[in-house]
């Protein structure tokens, strides 16, 4: 047995060394772009562990876009080179994420990186790619600091965390002004990891600024087996407005519990994550009705290509696309666009092209933004958010008012539970 183990270890080390000395399948650093047949893109995602469902959703978005790009003839300026996704599992652990980024760059020689969903993984892994001068396109992670370190190789498509907290409150205030049902008492309900805590930081600023009062500040562990205690606390606080930051299982437990306890608020507003997870609607059914979600994307967005893309996605995976999937999808088009303009698979050239990105139309533009353009810090300046409301199991865009779904009329305040069928 020991011999076997020894042999396995030895083979392992040899393989590692062996792989290291090869140049890998892609000669992105070779200089000559004529011979490029494929461009490797490192995709770092939480594919195992508690956040795996959302990691899987991001993966789907990336895969769909890659298939489309390749089917449409790949990167034309590179002689039709194909995009190849190289997935790595971060396990949601910063240490592993960093190590995997290192491997994708050093061993697999990827030309571009993308990922890593959780901010706590994106943060250190973008540092790795900065060091090796490999461009890193961040579709989803929202932690503000990610693009505030003066990095030159990090490009973020998504809005910052502080924008979410700001827009949730802004929307509620505008709804109050429009309908006369003005929310005053606000409950903050959020999971207690980095994401929820940075939202809370934003709310503590934006809620008082909007002239509302925080009547409940309720963080909870997202792995909770039972959230009834939190729900009862909300009931006790009797808020007009409930703001959430939740992952999937907690979003489901909270929504069902609030329905069971018949807590009536004018509005309940999530911000992507669990509330945008396709499994969420499947699992809570009617209890989600009239709930809001501040999100990056919705299937009813009035933009060309949205319907078709969503239909393709649904046919392939059986669920609607959501914000995370759409952003991951669009990020692949941003990368393809940069490759096309760079006419090279050299990371340095790709970076230059990415910095000059200005996409206003085309197949990848299914996001609500008018344009994709990165500022000096690598932040997409046009990134914006939309508000959707769930009605009859459908998510309909209601805000910003100029982008709303013309066929849908927003319901505010939400009807009391006892008045619902």
């Amino acid at each position, binding site marked *: 047995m020991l011999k076997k183990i020894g042999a396995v270890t030895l083979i392992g080390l040899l393989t590692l060394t062996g792989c290291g000395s090869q140049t890998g399948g892609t000669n992105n650093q070779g200089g000559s772009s004529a011979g490029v047949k494929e461009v490797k893109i490192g995709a770092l995602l939480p594919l*195992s562990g508690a956040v*795996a469902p959302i990691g899987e959703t991001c993966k789907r978005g990336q895969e769909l876009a890659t298939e489309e790009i390749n089917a449409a003839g790949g990167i034309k300026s590179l002689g039709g080179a194909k995009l190849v996704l190289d997935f790595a599992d971060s396990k949601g652990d910063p240490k592993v994420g960093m190590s995997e980024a290192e*491997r994708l760059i050093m061993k697999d020689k990827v030309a571009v990186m993308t990922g890593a969903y959780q901010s706590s993984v994106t*943060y250190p892994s973008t540092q790795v790619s900065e060091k090796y001068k490999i461009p890193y396109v961040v579709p989803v992670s929202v932690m503000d600091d990610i693009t505030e370190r003066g990095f030159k190789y990090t490009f973020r498509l998504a809005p910052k965390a502080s924008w979410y907290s700001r827009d949730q409150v802004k929307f509620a205030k505008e709804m109050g002004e429009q309908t006369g049902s003005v929310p005053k008492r606000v409950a903050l309900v959020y999971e207690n990891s980095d994401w929820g805590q940075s939202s809370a930081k934003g709310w503590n600023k934006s809620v008082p600024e909007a002239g509302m009062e925080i009547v409940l500040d309720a963080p909870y562990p997202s792995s909770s087996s039972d959230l009834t205690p939190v729900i009862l606390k909300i009931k006790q606080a009797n808020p007009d407005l409930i703001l959430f930051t939740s992952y999937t299982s907690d979003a489901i437990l909270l929504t069902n519990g609030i329905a069971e306890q018949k807590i009536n608020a004018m509005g309940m507003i999530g911000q992507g994550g669990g509330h945008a997870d396709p499994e969420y609607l499947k699992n809570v059914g009617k209890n989600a009705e009239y709930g809001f979600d501040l999100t990056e994307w919705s299937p009813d967005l009035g933009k060309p290509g949205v319907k078709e893309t969503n239909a393709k996605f649904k046919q392939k995976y059986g669920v609607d696309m959501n914000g995370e999937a759409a952003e991951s999808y669009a990020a692949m088009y941003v990368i393809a666009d940069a490759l096309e303009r760079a006419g090279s698979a050299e990371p340095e050239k790709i970076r230059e092209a990415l910095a000059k990105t200005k996409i206003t139309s085309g197949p990848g533009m299914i996001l609500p933004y008018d344009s994709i353009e990165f500022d000096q810090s690598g932040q997409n300046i046009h990134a914006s958010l939309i508000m959707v409301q769930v009605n009859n199991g459908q998510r309909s865009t209601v805000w910003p008012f100029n982008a709303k779904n013309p066929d849908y009329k927003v319901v505010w305040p939400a009807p009391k539970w006892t008045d619902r069928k």
Partner: protein
Amino acid sequence: MLRRLRYPSYFLPFLFLLILGLLPFIINNEYILQVFIMFLFNAYLASGWNIISGFAGQLSLGHAAFVGIGAYTSTILFVQWGISPWIGMIFGGVIAAIFGWLIGYPVFKLRGPYYALATIAYGEIIRIFIQNTKAVGPIELKGAEGILIPFKGSSPALFQFETKAAYYYVALAMFLLVLLLSYKIKNSKMGYYLSAIGNDQDAAESLGVNTSKMKLTASAISAFVMALGGTFYAQFLLYINPQGVLSGDFSTEIAVIGIIGGEGTVFGPVLGSLILTPLSELTRIYLGGRFAGVHLLAYGLILMAVVTHIPHGVIGTFSKLYHRILLKLGDPVVSAKTGAGKTL
């Protein structure tokens, strides 16, 4: 001394050391170097854990707490007050040692599984506390968001390096030091007492061993070692967060490496890391991105197979094999001892 190097029992370890020392010159690939750093780091942590859990047989499943204390202490000192992590490292070690001693005081009354469960509990308490605390007075813990360490470029005085090779040498130095420490403890009176405690605490006590003092001392040393590892972790990643450095899974990982290698031996944790670090990397590389879960499934199966087929850690089988190799190479020292060997 130099004459003795002709003997395989002397030149083989020397050869290994030489290879480890020259590795960055042999392997010109930062990723492979990263794997070796992880190997050294894991071996280091498992060796630190081994001082209390192996030598004294007190299974700790909360050792990430001490790694975290080290990482947080040096990082906060550096980020908030600009104190070099090299100094912060010692502070962290001392704080962790005090902590290990204080916690040990009540917890060491517990035996066997009860002790292990208590270690899980204090590990969790510390994680939950830091995860939900923004600041204690002037000390900014930053809660779940974690603390980012600004990269100042290559500045050895601040424990920051541009190259992997530099981190590799730091890790190697720490690794060798902890081995030396383990060896000294193991072959001292203290080591003898600790292993007596591990075998049968009541018997040790009746022989006049001050068991609680011994355990507390071992616990403090172990915590000190773990905390230094924490500073390395922080400076290497330049980012720490409670879910990463303080997680229960991290604690379990450290213990698994120690147990697989062979508890209570000097080289057991090293072997554990030598097997598990590449195994975890390889399964993840070749299986990780394709089908979710396959890599950890394979890892788990191999873990189970090793536990089932190799009793008392890999070290036992390994040292037999090693002696056989030495004998084959015609080593006079080992032949004379007929395979009895020193305590590894």
